[in-house]
């Protein structure tokens, strides 16, 4: 075989391999989603949305868990978003390339990928242990810590996209710095910032590990954030590994619901981001 043919063969082989592994990746996504739909869809019925999580061996629903997840996520985003936006604003508008903001940027990127279970342990030692009981607030704070890095990152990136001339024009009209930021820069970067919050929400909605040590679970209806509160991820974890068929079926229904919400949010976020960047 000539050298030219060998080169062509290697080229051909590697490109086919790339095609195959891409197909494999897409197949994995299809496999996971098809399992979720075929197992989860058949157990989704009216009772899932109207009844409480059942004791072992009897039918029931997920109402308290759905409510708990919504409440914990809501408070986590409520706590995490302002902190993230302000920190991101500092990095973009005031920090520049000072040593302090470089450090914050660096640490923030590390926290972005830090193991969520460690955050759970941290909040456990910080709040649950001194208080002596698990609570919804502890869960919300643990998730808020996961929200912050995502929002910091997207806020900084989006604010940096706003042209400097816009700031200068506003400043030339005599607007103080905070007015420039609040009513000019934020307005221009709004859709990007919302995307960041959406992505952060999608990320924490399915998080299980930090809630395991903080909010734990509650078989009954509870809207008291000072007590353990039911939530979808921990319900999925406990029910999927239980020996009871009713519980396992509910776990599949919950898994489908949570995945659908997370994926929908991700797609919406991507769509808004695409819209804002092409404008």
């Amino acid at each position, binding site marked *: 075989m000539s050298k030219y043919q060998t*080169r062509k063969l290697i080229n051909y082989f590697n490109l086919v391999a790339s*095609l195959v*592994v*891409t197909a494999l990746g897409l197949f994995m*996504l299809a496999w996971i989603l098809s399992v979720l739909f075929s197992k989860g869809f058949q157990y989704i019925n009216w009772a899932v949305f109207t009844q409480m999580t059942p004791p072992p061996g009897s039918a029931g629903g997920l109402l308290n868990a759905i409510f708990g997840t919504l409440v914990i996520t809501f408070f986590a985003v409520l706590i995490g978003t302002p902190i993230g936006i302000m920190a991101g604003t*500092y990095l973009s508008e005031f920090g520049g390339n000072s040593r302090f903001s470089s450090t914050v940027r660096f640490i*923030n990127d590390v926290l972005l990928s830090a193991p969520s279970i460690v955050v759970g*342990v941290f909040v456990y030692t910080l709040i649950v242990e001194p208080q002596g009981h698990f609570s919804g607030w502890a869960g919300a704070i643990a998730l808020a810590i996961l929200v912050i890095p995502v929002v910091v990152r997207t806020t900084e990136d989006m604010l940096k996209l706003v042209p400097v001339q816009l700031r200068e024009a506003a400043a030339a009209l005599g607007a103080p710095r905070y*007015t420039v930021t609040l009513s000019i820069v934020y307005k221009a970067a709004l859709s990007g910032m919302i995307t960041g919050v959406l992505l952060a929400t999608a990320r924490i909605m399915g998080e299980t590990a930090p809630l395991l040590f903080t909010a734990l679970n509650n078989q009954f209806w509870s809207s008291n954030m000072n007590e353990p509160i039911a939530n979808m991820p921990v319900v999925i974890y406990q029910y999927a590994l239980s020996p009871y068929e009713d519980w396992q079926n509910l776990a599949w229904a919950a898994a489908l619901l949570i995945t659908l919400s997370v994926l929908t949010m991700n797609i919406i976020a991507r769509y808004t981001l695409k819209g804002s960047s092409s404008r």
Partner: protein
Amino acid sequence: MTTLDTTAPKVVKKTNNSGVLGDRIFKGTAFFFAAMVLVVLFGIMLLLLKEAWPTFAHFGFGFFYHSEWDVVNNQYGALVPIVGTLVTSLIAIVIGVPVSFGIAIFITLMAPNWMKRPVGIAIELLAAVPSIIYGMWGLFYFAPWFANSMQPIMTSTLGNVPLIGQFFQGPPIGVSIFTAGVVLAIMIIPFIASVMRDMFEVVPTALKESAYAMGSTTWEVVWKVILPYTKAGVIGGIMLGLGRALGETMAVAFVVGNSLELNTGLFYPGATIASTMANEFNEASGLHMSSLIALALILFIITFVVLSIAKWFLLRLEKVQEGSKT
């Protein structure tokens, strides 16, 4: 900061007093919350260290290399979970990196334009699927399939190779260190692939076209032009994936088997730091709890180091690119 304020013209203060005050408050608040990011990191480190201290004081350095984890006799050694964490992540990297590389090549160089975005998004959606879903799928679908079809083949072929043969042994139950590694590989592929894709896309067209004009095949362009140009970014992406794999909890807790015995066979059940914590934390107290927190601290430090290296490589590439632009 203060020097700037004192040298500011007095006229400004008179005419726009509220503006200056508002600016100070605004900047101060922003600074406060930016500093909070640092406080969170050091808070995690310090609090975990404080809670883990009894363990380090009790077992000393032996905590890192003793393999017994005996709750009944209150003896704790972290060797098995540490090795489990490293081995599962290593398997994930060995499988995940070539696959991510192939996906990045496909998206940047092979796919027609209408296909690039949908395929890219589909791969990235793999990253959005919650980790617990991977756990359920892994335990109820992937592990049984793997135990029945792949594992016998691997044991009868790779298992007979001298030296590495001993690694491919184990009972056909599906939950094992190896299964956990494969599931982790699927989970980190989107992270590595998207970093690689972003890197490949910024390679200057002139460079690629020059290589093509010299008669290079597509693969040679990838291997000899694109990869050397983006080396730092690619390594950064791989380290980022590694950082994710090390700390992944729920998926691993489902499929790793949660056995704290040391085995050379990869098909035996095992444990990682994160899976051990997920399993035992809520029943633990005293020294047991402290040992689990010590595990958490070890995990946090390992991932911190890995992610710092990742960040360092990615920053270096950014600088190189900024330099080449000017």
